[in-house]
């Protein structure tokens, strides 16, 4: 009690007065209770929420980025696939065209050959025909000529023998192949 009265008198500025100690304690308790009861819980909750929100946003951004990366990779893969596909189609078209060209060429060649062969055949047939005709005519001319020269007709057997001999002679002399 004696100490309290000395303190309450507040003689020394370093010694706290009793009433001020009591009310100062009350003031500090008000501060502590007020802050820890009404301010810090909501502050803590808000800070936690903010942290969570920022973290959530960052995670979302990360997810979006990963997704975008995936889509890009897919797109690139598709693009590469499309390029391969187009290359393949071009290659196939080239091969088909090549084949077609070769076929046509072969066919044309074959046709040309067959045309030539037919023409040769025709030529040979014509030649044979002409040759046969010529042979007949020459024979007749020769007989007529001989008849005129000899003045008499040769009998048919001699006649034909002479013609053949002549023609063979002409053939072997005028045409090496016969």
């Amino acid at each position, binding site marked *: 009690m004696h100490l*309290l*009265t000395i303190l*309450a008198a*507040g003689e020394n*500025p*370093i*010694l*706290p*007065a*009793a*009433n*001020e*100690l*009591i*009310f*100062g*304690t*009350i*003031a*500090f308790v*008000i*501060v*502590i209770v*007020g*802050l*820890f009861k*009404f*301010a*810090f819980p*909501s*502050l803590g909750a*808000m800070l936690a*929420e*903010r942290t969570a*929100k920022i973290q959530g946003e960052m995670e979302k951004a990360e997810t979006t980025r990963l997704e975008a990366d995936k889509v890009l990779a897919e797109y690139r893969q598709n693009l590469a696939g499309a390029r391969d596909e187009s290359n393949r189609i071009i290659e196939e078209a080239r091969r088909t065209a090549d084949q077609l060209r070769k076929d046509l060429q072969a066919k044309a060649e074959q046709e040309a050959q067959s045309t030539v062969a037919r023409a040769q055949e025709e030529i040979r047939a014509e030649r044979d025909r002409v040759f046969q005709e010529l042979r007949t005519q020459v024979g007749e001319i020769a007989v007529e000529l001989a008849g005129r020269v000899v003045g008499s007709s040769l009998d048919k057997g001699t006649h034909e023998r002479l013609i053949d001999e002549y023609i063979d002679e002409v053939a072997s002399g005028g045409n090496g192949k016969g």
Partner: protein
Amino acid sequence: MLAALSGRAGFPAPGIDILKTPCLWGTNGALCVNRVVIYMLLAAIVTVCLFVLAFRRPSLVPRGLQNVMEAIVEFVRNGIAIEVIGPEGLAFVPLLSAIFVFVLVGNLFEVIPGIQFPVNSRTAIPVILAVLVWFVFNIVGVKKQGGLGYIKSVLFPPGVPWPIYILVTPIEFVSTFVLRPFTLFVRLSANMIAGHLILTIFFVGTGYLLGRALTIPFAVPSFALAVGLTGFEILVSVLQAYIFTILTAVYIGGAIHVEH
């Protein structure tokens, strides 16, 4: 003495008795309500209001008062708790913030028009806070290192050759367990007493000098100095609140970490 001075028409320089205020309500004694008591309670209410208005319904994107108070809490958190104590300091951010703002508000009452009385120039609140800090850092130390371990780490700091302990141990004992609370509260109170005295002297002096035609020219520099010192006292108020808080953190950090 005052009467004698004024009888001789000299300047009645204000002394530390300006810190004593008469009881407004109640009798002289433990329940005397004077100006100081009212300002103490007002400082507490202002502190609580600042925090509660800022953080009662906090928004994720801070605005206005919430922004200011968040900046203060952020400063205490990063600039004091984490900087001085480390990651364990996060647990002490609420306490350190409360101490910082309460001391700051009490100090700034010195320059608030109509109040102009630093609550912490009276030693009551600094003493209460210093005693609280003493208990906090000792309890933290005992919890972290165990009773014996804590006392051993304080009294016998490692890395000292053993004969030196004859010198070091008593010094460490006195400085840690006895002097710390004293220096903590005296530093704060003495600064605020000095600031309040200086401001009072220059403002009262200005009034005194205005009282006679001859001395009126000297009232101007006296007033200018008083205004300038008011700005300086704002700086001192913030600085002392910061020092009080950071020393609290240093003491807690020292109790947590064995080697400091």
